[in-house]
């Protein structure tokens, strides 16, 4: 049954266009994928699924070229919205950004962009749908959904940087490796969220999702299912402040920046 779905057009303002979708087989995952049941009633059109609270509510525009802390301090009204890209367990930093690209220095704006273009290029070929299409440098998926131990392996900060530079805004994983989580919080490149259940088994690449940060909730518009996310925990104050430097200035650990 063909269903009308509003399509998110990344990097431009919203264009609500009805498009047919066919239920394709899963491009990855050893786990059984439930075939989503489409119902026009549960799929909310884009325009009414959130009410923007000021300019910061939805970030669709690509990141600035320098390494920003893109997470605003007020997270209570923050939402992330877009297509999700689903990966499995133990996604390591070599898959996120292979070692050969590590000569790129993230604090260099041009090289920051280049890093983004290689995000998740190390995923095996079993992932038929790639995170970044060939000949593209940005991703159309703003949310990455993963399984256990996401970001394991190296301490390379290039990993969350590459994801952020590519255009990802948030990662929702079952669990994280600690250095990747820490780097995500420190850089502000991607918001690292944890799910209560293995949503990597219930979501498929290309599903339209919304994350309501203040409510710790993920909504999959394509399947109509909602999921509770875990509270951010001790990293909360650091993220709220806008990263480790902002937090240190806020708490008086280091003096305010003098320009």
């Amino acid at each position, binding site marked *: 049954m063909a269903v009308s779905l509003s399509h998110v057009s990344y990097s431009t303002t919203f264009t609500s266009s009805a498009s047919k979708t066919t239920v394709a087989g899963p491009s990855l995952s050893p786990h059984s994928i439930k075939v989503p049941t489409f119902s026009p009633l549960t799929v909310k059109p884009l325009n009414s699924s959130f009410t923007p609270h000021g300019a910061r509510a939805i970030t669709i525009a690509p990141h600035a070229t320098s390494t920003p802390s893109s997470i605003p301090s007020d997270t209570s009204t923050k939402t992330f919205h877009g297509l999700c890209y689903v990966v499995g367990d133990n996604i390591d930093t070599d898959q996120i950004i292979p070692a050969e690209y590590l*000569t790129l220095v993230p*604090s260099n704006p041009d090289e920051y962009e280049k890093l983004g273009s290689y995000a998740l290029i190390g995923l095996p070929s079993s992932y038929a749908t790639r995170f970044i299409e060939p000949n593209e440098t940005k991703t159309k998926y703003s949310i990455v959904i993963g399984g256990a131990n996401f970001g*394991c392996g190296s301490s390379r900060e290039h990993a969350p940087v590459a994801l952020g530079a590519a255009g990802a805004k948030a990662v929702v994983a079952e*669990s994280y490796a600690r250095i990747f989580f820490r*780097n995500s919080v420190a850089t502000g490149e991607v918001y690292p969220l944890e799910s209560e259940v293995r949503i990597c088994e219930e979501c498929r690449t290309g599903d339209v999702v919304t994350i309501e940060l203040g409510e710790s909730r993920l909504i999959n518009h394509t399947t109509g299912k909602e999921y509770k996310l875990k509270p951010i925990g001790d990293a909360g104050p650091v993220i709220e402040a806008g990263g480790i430097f902002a937090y240190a200035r806020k708490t008086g650990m280091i003096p305010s920046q003098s320009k």
Partner: protein
Amino acid sequence: MAPQQSERKTYTTGSVKTGMTMTEKILARASEKQQLNPGDNVWVNVDILMTHDVCGPGSIGIFKKEFGEKAKVWDREKIVIIPDHYIFTSDERANRNVDILRDFCGEQNIKYFYDIKDLSNFKANPDYKGVCHVALAQEGHCRPGEVLLGTDSHTCTAGAFGQFATGIGNTDAGFVLGTGKVLLKVPPTLRFVMDGEMPHYLLAKDLILQIIGEISVAGATYKSMEFVGTTVESLNMEERMTLCNMVVEAGGKNGVVPADSTTFKYLEDKTSVPYEPVYSDAQASFLSEYRFDISKLEPLVAKPHSPDNRALARECKDVKIDRVYIGSCTGGKTEDFLAAAKVF
């Protein structure tokens, strides 16, 4: 150089303290707190910060952006900069990254910079030391009781010296460069007791593969791994480094081996900086304890594609080998080359 070991201070407080593990004690002292419990978030004073050619330039970039172009590092003697990852190459960007390190070390007058300029002959470089984690140990930068951070996941190697050592990213490193402090969450400790005489056909790599196979690649996430027992005591420093090196492969935050006469002997001719070892209290709480009779272990391998995909080497005897790599921080120390040579 005469070895230095300051007298053990006795803490006198009126309050009753809960026993702490080695990791908790090291972090307590480094954060100037009398008592710490797992889960506490504290600002910790850093004794040594190490960075290399992959993450150094990025860390320097952040340091300058946040503290200013003219900012000075917190302590020119506590930073160790070791180009080691992409060195013998014609790749321009890789070589540029070493130049960035050199410029920074010059401008900041960094005391420990193990530079390399002549790529055609590594012996022509008097300062070059090779693999960062091995160099840190050999150059006497690893000392019991201290806090050592590095922009590399295998920084946990240094825990072999009875110190807190863990890997951090560029942003944290940029912060440390300017302040000498880091915000850390105190990890609970898993204890691994290894007893029994080590058979001659085993190496520390077999021990850590046994452990990782047991607890999985996320079995120690956010936790400290403490290695004790008679077998551990019989290991030399290089073997203890191998043990601690793969702590991160189990997801571990840091690994520790209590300092003993083997440690002190190793450090005798390498450092004159006074240090004060720290040991877990008898009544410290551990999350779990695992016991191993090493005399019963067999050589192990980790099959593709995960370090926890443990198998007996014996079970893999029909697997044809195309290529063998011996090197890097886990298995590229002198001991490892000697062990490989003995096979032939």
